[in-house]
């Protein structure tokens, strides 16, 4: 029998190094996001701007009121959507499940538009409304999965149907309340222009609390990944746990949608890449998804600003243009085109 080092735990991949690399990439992308755009801002000005020492200058105004909120929004929305996707895929045991595909994002979007139409002045209500919409979406899909024992493809298709119903609801609301959404195109495709810190802060707390709770449940998520029957036989209360996890995933997706609109692909691509990079142990996977999602969205947003500067395109377009082909390539490379 081969001898292995007895003191160590056999690990799939050098997870620590991957996480450190992702953290570095995320910090770098955030720095680039603050510095680059239609006007270049020197990195050396950032600490002064953060300390309020540049409040009278143009650079200070750009950093404080434009680049910083936008970068924070990218980091937050990217992390939230990627972790939400990883959790939903894990709970539904379905690689095709992602917040934008199975109706979670559009459910959140519908409630955000409804909330904006009914309470146009209330910024703090928006994340709550988004959570309720996202949770409704995720519950509908879970109900379909539980009642019909639907296959992965059927479940994804049912999610697409749910998503389309919610999207039709958004269109109808915007038709009747055209002022409900400040920039309809940005909201439908996903965009982070015109962000202010007061729109991000309520979502920040939702994301922070949800992430902490998810990390504390990562041990349970590992067991859930072994399959329902195995998890139950290991003493896990599967049904209540699935509900809690999906509620947290909905809170994350809802928080992102509340200020970034219906961003696609982050919640689908990032968990796939990270699963292949760090494996399926939940704790490193959640951390890697948070960092990877934050990094990806920040870089895509940067591209959306600099590609056609001084004009910019909604980040959702860049995400779809970059993410779509990449995802198809990934599927073809990994499984010969089969969804496993």
């Amino acid at each position: 029998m081969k001898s292995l080092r007895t003191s160590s735990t056999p690990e799939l991949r050098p997870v620590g190094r991957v996480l450190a690399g992702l953290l570095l990439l995320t910090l770098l992308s955030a720095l680039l996001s603050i510095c680059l755009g239609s006007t270049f801002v020197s990195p050396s000005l950032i600490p002064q701007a953060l300390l309020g020492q540049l409040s009278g200058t143009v650079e200070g105004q750009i950093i404080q009121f434009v680049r910083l909120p936008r970068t924070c929004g990218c980091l937050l929305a990217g992390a939230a959507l990627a972790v939400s996707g990883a959790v939903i895929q894990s709970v539904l045991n379905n690689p095709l499940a992602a917040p934008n595909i199975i109706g979670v994002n559009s459910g959140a979007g519908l409630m955000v538009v409804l909330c904006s139409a009914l309470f146009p002045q209330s910024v703090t209500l928006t994340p709550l409304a988004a959570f309720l919409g996202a949770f409704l979406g995720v519950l509908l899909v879970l109900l379909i999965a539980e009642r019909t024992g639907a296959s992965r493809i059927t479940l994804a298709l049912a999610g697409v149907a749910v998503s389309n119903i919610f999207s039709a609801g958004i269109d109808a609301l915007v038709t009747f309340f055209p002022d409900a959404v400040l920039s309809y195109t940005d909201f439908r495709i996903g965009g982070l222009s015109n962000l202010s810190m007061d729109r991000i802060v309520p979502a920040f707390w939702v994301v922070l609390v949800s992430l902490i709770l998810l990390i504390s449940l990562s041990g349970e998520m590992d067991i859930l990944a072994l399959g329902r029957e195995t998890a139950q036989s290991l003493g896990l209360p599967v049904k209540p746990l699935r509900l809690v996890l999906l509620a947290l995933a909905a809170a994350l997706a809802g928080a992102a949608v509340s200020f970034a609109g219906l961003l696609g692909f982050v919640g689908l691509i990032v968990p796939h890449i990270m699963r292949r990079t760090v494996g399926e142990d939940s704790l490193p996977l959640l951390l890697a998804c948070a960092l990877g999602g934050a990094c990806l969205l920040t870089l895509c947003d940067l591209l959306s600003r600099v590609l056609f500067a001084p004009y910019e395109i909604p980040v959702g377009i860049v995400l779809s243009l970059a993410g779509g082909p990449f995802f198809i390539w990934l599927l073809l490379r990994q499984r010969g085109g089969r969804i496993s």
Partner: protein
Amino acid sequence: MIQLEHISAGYGGPLVVQDVSLDLKAGEVLVLLGPNGCGKSTLLKVIAGLQPPAGGQVLVDGQPAARLTRRQLAQKVTYLPQSRSVPNITAYRMVLHGRFPYLSYPRRYRPEDHAAARRALEQADAWELARLPVQTLSGGQRQKVYLAMALAQDTQTILMDEPTTYLDIQHQLDLLAFSQALAREGRAVVLVLHDLCLALRFAHRGAVMEEGRLLQTGTPEELFSSGILAETFRTPLNRIRTEGGWRYYYD
């Protein structure tokens, strides 16, 4: 150890298991036998606490299983389902998860859990697979890892639903010999098997079911002699004495 008292069970429609009473004994390999759809797997799920009984009760060490928490039950009964998810984790990590019922919050594995996982992998002759991702293992290797996971769970009763499916004959023989070894350690091992000949060769006792009812229990010799197997499976069964004991075969 575990007693089933007048167990009935189903999935909302007609009962799949009806009025089954059975004792699972320490040191014994018990095989549930019967045609497809006779309720063997459902009965196994009832014992594992995955399917609530519609009637009757399961007693674990004299205590009604319904009064045990899911975690307490998991410290007494291990269940290996027929189909399992294969996550992208190492074999070692998979086996370590067998220790989950013993963890309190925040569910981080302790040194004694790592020691138990290593012992289990060595006992299942799978330590050399520890660093490999489960997804890259062959069917036989995966089965060894699942067995190691069951050993790490360290329960007195081990239930396995169709554990030989997709295994070649050598791995089937290895697995059944391993089940006997587990019984020799004093555990109760319950198997659902479709291969009647292998089941009779390796079981200490068989329980024959048909249409949800338990028809007869007994040693392989008793079941063969009574003719119940040929009647239930509607296939003539023969046997031949060898140096290793009776071997059963179909005509």
